[in-house]
């Protein structure tokens, strides 16, 4: 664990929030093992170096290539690999995001190294790194060790809290990889944002509706409550399968795994596959007319009643305190 490569996710030259979490995790490794840390970004704005300095990063490698103007995980991984060869990197940290989850296994294949995805914690037992990750959508957590000398990890977003720990100065270097068109056989040609809609993965509060909503048209009360709270709308598998809500909103084992500060479950009975996706939420409020619904067992607050009566009242009550 001599040389750590910490990959910073960036969009149009600006880094994402996960970058600070990755930087913080790298700083933790450095503190424990005395490793040298290199932050890596692609075609990044120079101002990023100053930002990550706040989180203890002393070396910054900016990979520059016109062939990386459009994102290609194949080409980006090749570029990181080339930089890693030059610096002798033996630990790689990626964010477990849509980009990082493609890059990390590629690096593990190139380095013939063990890789653990979606890591929520790591610690050392002597020289052995013990790495925790959720499995079965969070129904269990496993502890792993990596047997190869080179280690690759992707870290679950929002778990490794970013802590400021300013470094003195940043050693800033550009790296020009040796790439050709063969490396960009697949590339991202366009990106579409879900306008005005907050993603359940990124929301602090989620208001979810289940089969108890009875109909797609009834989701207005869920959207109203979510609007008041600045929350994302979520859904159970039953309502997504019924075509009432888009799959992007599905929370659970075959949807998204979320851990917001508050999860409000309306008309969701609490099937195991749904609970797997949201049981790490900080607080859970459930509204259901069946007092024996399994969702209440995992809830902090449970309201037994008709959601069509309760949800609008909740909305009014919350509006009052929000003034």
């Amino acid at each position, binding site marked *: 664990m001599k040389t750590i490569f910490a990959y910073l996710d960036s969009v149009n030259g600006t880094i994402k929030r996960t970058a600070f979490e990755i930087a913080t995790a790298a700083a933790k490794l450095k503190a424990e093992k005395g490793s040298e840390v290199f932050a890596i970004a692609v075609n990044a704005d120079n101002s990023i170096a100053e930002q990550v300095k706040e989180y203890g990063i002393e070396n910054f490698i900016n990979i520059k290539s016109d062939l990386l103007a459009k994102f290609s995980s194949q080409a980006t991984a090749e570029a990181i690999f080339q930089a890693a060869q030059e610096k002798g990197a033996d630990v790689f940290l990626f964010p477990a995001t849509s980009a990082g*989850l493609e890059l990390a296994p590629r690096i593990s294949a190139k380095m013939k190294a063990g890789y653990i995805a979606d890591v929520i914690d790591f610690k050392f037992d002597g020289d052995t790194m013990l790495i925790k990750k959720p499995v079965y959508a969070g129904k*269990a957590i496993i502890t792993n060790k990596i047997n190869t000398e080179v280690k690759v990890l992707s870290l679950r977003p929002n778990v490794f809290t970013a802590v400021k720990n300013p470094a003195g100065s940043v050693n800033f270097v550009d790296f020009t990889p040796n790439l050709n068109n063969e490396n960009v056989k697949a590339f*991202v040609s366009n990106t*579409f944002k879900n306008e005005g809609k907050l993603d359940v993965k990124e929301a602090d509060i989620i208001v979810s509706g289940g089969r108890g909503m009875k109909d797609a048209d009834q989701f207005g009360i869920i959207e109203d409550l979510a609007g008041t*709270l600045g929350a994302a709308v979520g859904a159970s598998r039953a309502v997504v399968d019924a075509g009432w809500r888009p799959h992007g909103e599905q929370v659970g084992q075959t949807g998204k795994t979320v851990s917001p500060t508050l999860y409000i479950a309306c008309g969701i009975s609490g099937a195991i596959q749904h609970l797997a996706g949201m049981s790490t939420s900080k607080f859970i409020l459930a509204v259901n007319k069946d007092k024996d619904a399994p969702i209440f067992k995992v*809830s902090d607050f449970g309201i037994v009643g008709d959601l069509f009566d309760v949800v609008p009242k909740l909305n009014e009550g919350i509006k009052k305190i929000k003034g």
Partner: protein
Amino acid sequence: MNILVAISRVPDTTTKILVGSNGRNIDTNNVKFILNPYDEFALEEAIQLKEKNGGKVIAITVGPAQAQETLRSALAMGADEAVHCKIESEFDSNTVAVNIADYAKRMNPDIIFMGKQSIDFDSLQLPSLLSEHLNLPLATIVTKLTIEGTSVKAEREIEGGKELVETSLPCIISAQKGLNDPRYPKLPDIMKAKKKPIEEIEATTSDLFVEVVGMELPSKTRLNKMFGSEDADINEVVRLLHEEAKVI
């Protein structure tokens, strides 16, 4: 069009997970295993492509003897052939990738499909590992796929939106829910599947890159405060969220 679909065998989503006696794996007693749900989207897309363009669909899995049940499910859906890469010892994702890549090199498929992730270890790594081992382009978490000639356009889900990935055949696609509506095998399909061939090959084993050393169940204690639906109840819940939990 020759299509390879990599599939896996996972516990049903309704499974209550318990830790097995070795403390490292799940207790598989009374656990029903199914075809990984995301692999159904992969298979459906492969079968539709075959129906349109001709060719054949081969399903492959790496695993112990029980993996054959999963291959039968794929055959019942409409795969033409199945390959069981047999392994009884402990194995990791690297071993799976090496074995599937070895088979793909011999078969030379036009396209390789798989589910975006297996719902057991949820690592999403096999598509990328195969892309590296085979040096083939890749699009992951795909919700819409358009193939014209050899040109491929794939819409993939990302945080808060979508990306359009452009590439060409041969390539690797990992399927997300929404890509299609997987067909439900009918009884005659299931009967026919029993007669379809399953080729057995011995997996190449390799040193484990990673090992599981322990498994635990997440523990979180909840307040479990229950209320009725009177106005006073709702006001109290709002107050608790605001003043005690401080989340609104």
